[in-house]
């Protein structure tokens, strides 16, 4: 960083601009290394945050400005491999650091597994928190391949989401960890199989470890890429029913329809936007839930004409309850009290609103695992959640 010598402000010959001298507004020029690309920044005020420089000077609008106070985590980026709040990093002092932003996650155009999992687990509504959340999840899984739920909660406690809540994100963390573990296992198995095959043949076979034989090609310093929206694999929908032209005019697609039938509320629907060039539209079958169209067919039987004599129990469509005759006695229905508020009628309990009268259990402090699963040595009470000790650093007896 070098502070420029004081210059005269002759860009404003009429002197209308507020005269802020260079002494009050010292500027610097420097180069940031963002996602592996050198990005020069010229003549920027030294008080500008990394978040501001990324968004306003370098056009990387992935990191979001939620609060500028370090409270919300929407601006999370990695500096030298550490998760930080971009709004609290003076950009001029990050000049010789390695900066990674959310744009770097999807550098190849396709969403990274983290972004894909966040979209699939329903962790996105307005999406404002999502880039920061994606960076926090990415950072967590870099450091810890198998985070427990408590560890995941602690890692994400600096990222606020005002729409969705955190369940989807926590589910995404577990699904990515599972998927990566499976991948690693498969790779290991494949390597092992190859090794045993090689041993059986007693032939020197190229070891899988030596696979990247050709030396890593030094990439020429390329132009920084123009980042587009990350491509989330589209969840395919069955084709729309043709709406007959006679059905009326003035109807466009119903609100929320994606033009291919069905209402797509879960995933950001890229199908209505022409796909970014060069990226194939993906279509994975049979992982779709699509609600049935129309009503199930049921034989309709007209009410018999008024006055038609029907003997008791006869003449009704199949399945209609048998009517007792008048002399059959009155069968009082069993009185069933209205179920308590929130009581599920059938099936699994809705775990949102608890049944009326459920004893109040205060929300556990942040990061406390569900009952009984607390790791030994977890303090209770006043020490807040992100202060929970992990088992390995349980130093205090």
């Amino acid at each position, binding site marked *: 960083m070098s502070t420029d010598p004081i210059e005269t402000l002759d860009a404003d010959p009429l002197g209308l601009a507020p005269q802020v001298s260079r002494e*009050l507004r010292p500027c610097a020029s420097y180069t940031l290394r963002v996602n592996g690309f050198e990005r020069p920044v010229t003549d920027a005020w030294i008080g500008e945050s990394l978040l501001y420089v990324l968004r306003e000077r370098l056009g990387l609008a992935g990191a979001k400005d939620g609060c500028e106070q370090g409270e919300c985590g929407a601006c999370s980026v990695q500096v030298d491999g*550490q998760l930080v709040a971009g709004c*609290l*990093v003076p950009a001029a*002092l990050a000049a010789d650091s390695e900066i990674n932003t959310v744009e770097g996650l999807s550098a190849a155009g396709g969403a990274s597994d983290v972004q894909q999992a966040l979209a699939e687990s329903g962790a996105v509504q307005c999406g404002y928190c999502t880039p920061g959340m994606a960076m926090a999840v990415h950072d967590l899984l870099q450091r810890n391949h198998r985070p427990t739920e408590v560890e995941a909660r602690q890692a994400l*406690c600096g990222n606020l989401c005002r729409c969705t809540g955190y369940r989807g994100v926590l589910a995404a963390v577990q699904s990515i960890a599972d998927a990566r573990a499976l991948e690693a296992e498969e790779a290991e198995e494949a390597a092992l199989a190859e090794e045993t095959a090689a041993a059986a043949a007693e032939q020197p076979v190229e070891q899988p470890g030596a696979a990247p034989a050709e030396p890593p090609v030094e990439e020429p310093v390329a132009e920084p890429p123009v980042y587009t929206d990350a491509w989330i694999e589209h969840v395919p929908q069955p084709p729309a029913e043709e709406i007959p032209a006679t059905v009326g005019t003035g109807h466009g697609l119903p609100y929320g329809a994606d033009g291919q039938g069905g209402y797509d509320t879960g995933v950001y629907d890229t199908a209505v936007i022409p796909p970014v060039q060069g990226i194939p539209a993906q279509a994975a079958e049979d992982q779709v839930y699509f609600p049935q169209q129309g009503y199930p067919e049921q034989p309709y039987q007209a009410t018999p004409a008024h006055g038609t004599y029907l003997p008791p129990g006869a003449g009704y469509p199949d399945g209609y309850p048998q009517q007792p005759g008048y002399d059959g006695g009155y069968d009082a229905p069993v009185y069933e009290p209205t179920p308590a508020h929130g009581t599920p009628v059938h099936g699994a309990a809705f775990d949102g609103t608890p049944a009326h009268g459920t004893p109040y259990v205060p929300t556990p402090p*942040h990061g406390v695992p569900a009952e009984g699963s607390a790791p030994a040595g977890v303090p209770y009470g006043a*020490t807040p959640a992100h202060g929970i000790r992990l088992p390995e650093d349980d130093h205090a007896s």
Partner: protein
Amino acid sequence: MLPASLDEAVDALAAAPAAVPVAGATDLMEAVNAGRLRPAALIGLGRITELRGWRYEDGGTAVLGAGLTHARMDRPDFAALIPALADAARTAGPPQVRNVGTLGGNIVTAAPAGDTLPVLAALEATVTLARAGATREVPVSHLLTGLDPVRPGELLTWVRVPLLHAPQVFLKATGRSGPARATASVALVLDPARRAVRCAVGAVAPVPLRPLEAEAWVAGCIDWDGSREIDPAATAAFGEYVAAACVPDGYGAEGAWEAVTEGPSAASVRLRRTVSVLARRALGRALK
């Protein structure tokens, strides 16, 4: 500018006394973003690796670098040395802030809710302040109370903390369950060699407060030679004692006049309850 050594940094600061030293920038950039600070120049301390670790000194003292981050202090090796400081560092903000926020920045900012401050006060730590060609040693309490503040052109370099090899506790009450600043905090350390209990209450006043009488009283209630047990009633009384000593009757009231005429304010009653619970629990855990 990013000096790579302490000497370079103090020289740079001597050359440009208006420049602002920047450690983790978590407090500094908050002020800049809010328009409360317009730095004339920045001197980044992040590349001074010697300040990012700690060393030991004769006489059972650890010398901590001002550039130790909260995340570093939370790690098990450090926590085994000074458990209360590790506990404080663990709760000082979200991970994004603890990854870069430093011990030195926490002390120089001297916010009422600074979490390491009551711990350092209870440990009776001293700090080293360096300027070009000279250093001086100041008790952390003198620094915080403004008795002997950081002078222009000085850098906080080291924090000397005694290693007590006895239980230490830091507890903090916050307004929400996530990472948040303390509404009250208590640090309590045992010093078996001197048969002393040292306690400091944070966040209830501009600086951490030491309830010296309560400390002396409770030290006399402990069976130091035996199992270090204490009557639960004494623990509870200690909590009340600490709370009464640290929270004035007029806490939160408009003026002193009101306090005199109306007894303890509602705010002071509430805060005393919080402090007394924290102090009682802290003592209970230290003597467990």
